[in-house]
């Protein structure tokens, strides 16, 4: 057993080294020119105050960089960068940074290449973050950690595949695809993490019931109030009808929390039954509800914090540009708050749903034996 886990860690370390080396030398795989900053000269600094009395500092950098791919590979390029101290949409560059650039066609009078900075090459940092996550999960979680990573990866692939189908076939409804994906996500996550057994089956049934019920409630509420209070205009990255995307996001967003409740509930209830096969239905109900009460608050909280925290940068921009607080909040948080509340409803509902599903499965087991 010991030698097997050593093999495993050696393979992981090998993969780590190979991927890091690759991502630092993958410039040839990109069509866009990439340049590495070699020298930076700070030119001037100006203080600016905008019409809302925000003060900031603006800087200009003259950058010398070396091209790392394309026909001009190895040549030096001169770039200029303007950035602010706050860095909402710009940043300072340091030697060693890799940048995507565009090349100017005519060379300057010194016959040196000039160009513009388009973006930063970020792939290596995403990779580092991914490895930190994987390493912590594997070291702390061992087998369960590995299984969680595999389940997350498979789920991400399923989602990507489902969305590909949606993008290519506009006649298939997004909600239909999401429903199928939700069933797959639930089955894969719970089976991977908890194995093939009665309590997992009960948790899968409870999760699906809980999620679909909460979606139904949310849809009815949205329909009955004719969407009042939902400010879709601030929804970002829209290429599609927004209502459908919003409903689909409600659906997916609460799934993890509902699964968490369902598996915690079914595990504890099956645990009680296994300890004492003769336990009464009443006793199971009371203990089950007790467990549910303890966890529902924290999980709803997790959802709320995840949803609303993402809007912080945008809210700061609104408020510092003189927008009123209530206006900024309704514009930026109306969808997030609705999503968190709908998720909370799913989470609380799945407590009795999991309880009765478990009791149903236990009764069936009792009838068999």
């Amino acid at each position, binding site marked *: 057993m010991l030698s097997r886990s050593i093999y495993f860690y050696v393979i992981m370390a090998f993969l780590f080294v190979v991927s890091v080396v690759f991502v630092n030398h993958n410039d040839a795989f*990109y069509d866009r020119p990439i340049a590495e900053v070699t020298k930076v000269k700070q030119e001037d600094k100006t203080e600016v105050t905008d*019409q809302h009395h925000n*003060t*900031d500092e*603006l800087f200009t950098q003259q950058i010398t960089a070396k091209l790392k791919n394309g026909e001009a590979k190895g040549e030096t390029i001169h770039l200029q960068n303007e950035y*602010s*101290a*706050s*860095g*909402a*949409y710009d940043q300072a560059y340091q030697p060693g*940074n890799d940048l995507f650039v565009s090349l100017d066609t005519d060379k300057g009078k010194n016959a040196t290449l000039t160009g513009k900075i388009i*973006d*930063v*090459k970020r792939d290596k*940092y995403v990779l580092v*973050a991914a490895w*930190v*996550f994987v390493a*912590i999960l594997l070291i*702390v*979680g061992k087998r*369960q*950690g590995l299984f*969680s990573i595999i389940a*997350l990866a498979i789920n991400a692939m399923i989602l990507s595949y489902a969305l590909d189908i949606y*993008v290519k076939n506009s006649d298939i409804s997004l909600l239909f695809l999401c429903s199928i994906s939700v069933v797959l996500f639930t089955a894969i*996550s719970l089976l991977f*993490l908890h194995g093939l057994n009665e309590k997992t089956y009960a948790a899968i049934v409870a999760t699906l019931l809980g999620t679909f019920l909460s979606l139904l409630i949310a849809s009815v*509420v949205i329909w009955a109030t004719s*969407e009042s*209070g939902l400010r879709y205009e601030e929804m*970002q*990255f829209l290429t599609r009808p927004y209502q459908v995307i919003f409903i689909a*996001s409600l659906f997916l967003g609460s799934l*993890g929390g509902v699964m*968490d409740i369902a598996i915690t509930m079914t595990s504890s209830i099956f645990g009680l039954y296994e300890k004492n096969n003769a336990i009464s239905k009443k006793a199971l109900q009371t203990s089950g509800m007790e467990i549910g009460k303890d966890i*529902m*608050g*924290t*999980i709803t*909280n*997790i*959802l*709320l*914090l*995840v*949803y*609303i*925290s993402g809007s912080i*940068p945008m809210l*700061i*921009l609104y*408020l510092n540009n003189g927008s009123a607080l209530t206006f900024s909040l309704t514009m930026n948080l*109306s969808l*997030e708050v609705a999503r968190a*509340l*709908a998720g909370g409803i799913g989470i*609380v*509902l799945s407590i009795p749903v999991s309880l009765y599903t478990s009791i149903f499965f236990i009764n069936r087991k009792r009838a068999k034996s």
Partner: protein
Amino acid sequence: MTVQVVLAAILFLLMVLVGGKKGVRSFFTLFLNFLVFLITMILMTIPIVNPIIVALIACTAICSMNLFYINGVNMKTKTAFISSMITIVILISFIVFITSKAKVQGFGEEVIEEISVFSLHVGVDFVKVGAAMVILTAIGSITDIAISIVSPMQELFHHQPSTSRKELVRFGLSIGRDVLGADTNTLFFAFLGSYLALILWFKDLTYSFGEIVNSKVFSAEMISILSAGAGVGLIIPITAWTAAYYLVKK
């Protein structure tokens, strides 16, 4: 009546039906957390205030409410509190390091048109705001795991006071492993819900893989979700050690 008011009323009703008094308290805590969020955000708009310090104070407030207000002040909640704070400090240094390296602060080119009416030079350090944001997303799950590890550890020690520190740590880690998958899952799907529109945007506008991975919005999202996940993993050994140290010392 707005959608939010009706949904909140339904949620309140359900929480009371399922949880009774505890349900009322849970609902009230949600509300308080939202208030803390508001105050935090307003403080962050002031340029001279360091967003990371504000986030640390906000985390202390959220942790205290979720632990002490719901479960009372006792050894369990105190240990969970200390472990959460240690994890938060470690996590914050990692996030500041990686966001400033990857330059994923602020806004991506995809939203720049939408915010073109605004002045972007608002004097607030967006690298720190970004780090504060990730910490606030992760704090909920971190305290949740901390308390779910400490409680059974204390139970075990209570029933078998002769348990050694090493055995306690091992027990704590095994409990942590059981909840790890569920909590990373909760975070994963919550993020998915938030960014479904973004994924569709990439697909509709046929971004290449290289463009997606290097774009600011996507890498910012990945870094947030992975750091939050790393925090969820990190809290497990930290809680197991802290609780074992505290229990056996007595």
